[in-house]
């Protein structure tokens, strides 16, 4: 028994090509039926995400299987395509790398594992899987868990919003019920606020020099708008302050903040300064209970996270190599058995 993998991903094809092959959930049954109709294929799983479309198939004749899959992709797209084709053991290694997030655009992202699980479940429900594919995917899930647990490949956040959420978690613990204030309704501050809301932040207060813009953003993210002249009155209740105004000078100064902090009963304050030029004087970071991060420090953390993850790649590949050998050994032992 052999496992083949045919597909394309963000590295081999631009989005304009990938979108021709994307398989919607409602079309999955039909696509799986077409794949299984290929001569020599015993079973298949179709993985379709925004960054990849891949078919994993169990077969007895790799040549027939790859020809059939290439033909299927070509018919679906109507053009020549930059398809990659892997045979055992490369197909096994590829799936293990995909499930572990090593083949993702952002190394170590974890969403892909859920997508692989969904793809397997969909194929299983259609009766398109075989014993070998079942073993392969169960092993892939174990590999992903092993790699995540034993390395730092998923550690840290990889976007400004995610870093802000992670830091807020390290300051406040549970974010449920926390209050956020946005000063200046910019795009990045909106994204950051949305990330925080998704983690349980209760109240978002938006203040902008143009009140209408503040009201529009507040409506979009389920917050409330206040006039810019009033933001200091609401400040004592706020836990996280996101600044992105276009003010040419500091609007948060140590003198102003030190006075405002007295009304906070020692509660910490997380200031996220996304503005350029900066809205917050760097000196406020020295005030007890104030944690200031500007755009450079947030982006620096993203870079640092990605470096840490890249540094873990060799260990991950080594672990995956062991798992590939283990699975291929099992496959060889059982190749004569019927699926």
């Amino acid at each position, binding site marked *: 028994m052999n496992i083949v993998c045919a597909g394309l991903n963000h590295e081999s094809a631009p989005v304009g090509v990938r979108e021709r092959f994307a398989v919607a959930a409602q079309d999955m049954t039909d696509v799986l039926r077409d794949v299984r109709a290929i001569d020599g294929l015993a079973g298949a799983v179709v993985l379709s995400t925004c960054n990849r479309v891949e078919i994993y198939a169990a077969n007895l004749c790799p040549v027939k299987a790859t020809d059939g899959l290439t033909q299927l992709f070509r018919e679906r797209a109507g053009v020549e395509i930059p398809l990659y084709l892997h045979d055992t053991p490369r197909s096994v290694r590829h799936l293990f790398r995909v499930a572990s997030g090593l083949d993702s655009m952002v190394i170590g992202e974890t969403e892909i594992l859920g997508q692989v699980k969904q793809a397997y479940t969909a194929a299983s429900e259609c009766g398109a899987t075989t014993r070998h594919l079942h073993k392969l995917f169960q092993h892939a899930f174990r590999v992903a868990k092993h790699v995540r*647990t034993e390395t*730092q490949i998923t550690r840290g956040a990889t976007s400004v919003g995610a870093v802000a959420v992670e830091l807020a978690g*390290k300051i*406040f613990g549970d974010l449920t019920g926390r209050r956020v204030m946005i000063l200046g309704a910019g795009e990045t501050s909106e994204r950051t606020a949305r990330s925080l809301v998704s983690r349980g932040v209760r109240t978002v207060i938006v203040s902008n020099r143009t009140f209408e813009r503040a009201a529009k953003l507040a409506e979009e993210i389920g917050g409330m708008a206040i006039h810019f002249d009033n933001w200091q009155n609401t400040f004592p209740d706020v836990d996280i302050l996101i600044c992105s105004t276009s003010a040419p000078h500091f609007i948060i100064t140590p003198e102003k903040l030190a006075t405002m902090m007295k009304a906070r009963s020692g509660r910490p304050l997380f200031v996220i300064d996304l503005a350029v030029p900066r809205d917050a004087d760097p000196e406020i970071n020295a005030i*007890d209970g104030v944690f200031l*991060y500007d755009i450079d420090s947030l982006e620096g*953390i993203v870079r640092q996270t990605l470096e840490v993850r890249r540094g873990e790649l060799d260990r991950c590949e080594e672990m995956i190599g062991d798992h590939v050998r283990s699975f291929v050994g099992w496959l060889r032992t059982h190749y004569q058995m019927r699926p």
Partner: protein
Amino acid sequence: MDQTLLYAASASYALAFVAAAQGLARTRRWTGAFSLGAIIVGFVLTSWSLYLRGGMEGSCPLNSLYDVLVFQSWSLVLIYLAVGPAYRLSLLGAFTSPLALALLLIALFSPISREPVVRQALNPWVETHAALSMIAYGGFGLACLAGAMYLVQEHQLKARRFSSLLHGLPPISDLATANRRLLLFGFVVLTAGFLAGLLSAMPVNTIKFWGSLGLWAIYGIILVWNKWWPLPAGRMAFASIVVFAAALVTLPAIQYLSSRP
């Protein structure tokens, strides 16, 4: 036999610390469970040792400096096991185990008498007073550790270091809460210990009395001050470290002075 058990307990705490440190540096999940397991083993061994010691001395084993150090180590771990999971601060173990180990090593290797001391007249209030005081200091010890963890985490956040340590340590708000509550716990238990001491009507060495009362008052002032004029969590953490360090220094001195005729 009782000392052999303490050697084994020391080894267990050392293993717990190594595992927890490894977990902090490399994010290996098994290290947390291993560290907790080793701490529990160390605690059971210390409890066994104290039980044997109590049998030899015919009273609660708090009759010598050696006893105090071992009991202090035991109460520190007892409180950690009681509050660590409650405050989701399992990592407190990474900091508790070296302190418990240090106390045991001092008890086992410093030039002090390790002979059992048998008291002639037994007063249950005196034993209650001594045991509660030790447990209170265990609480203060853990407050000190939570404070140290707070300051380390605060430094990481202020310095914008996104290191393994930042990921491994709990949120500073949780640490601040644990620090405050442990101080309060220690203070309440110490007060109860003092009341037991008063009820015992035992003759008290002046230095021991004023030294102990001074420490009690300092903890009380910190807590009352924080109640009326909330202190920044960093200052509270710092205060809990400084006062416990002072207690660590004065406690053996008080014990020594009070044991003199």
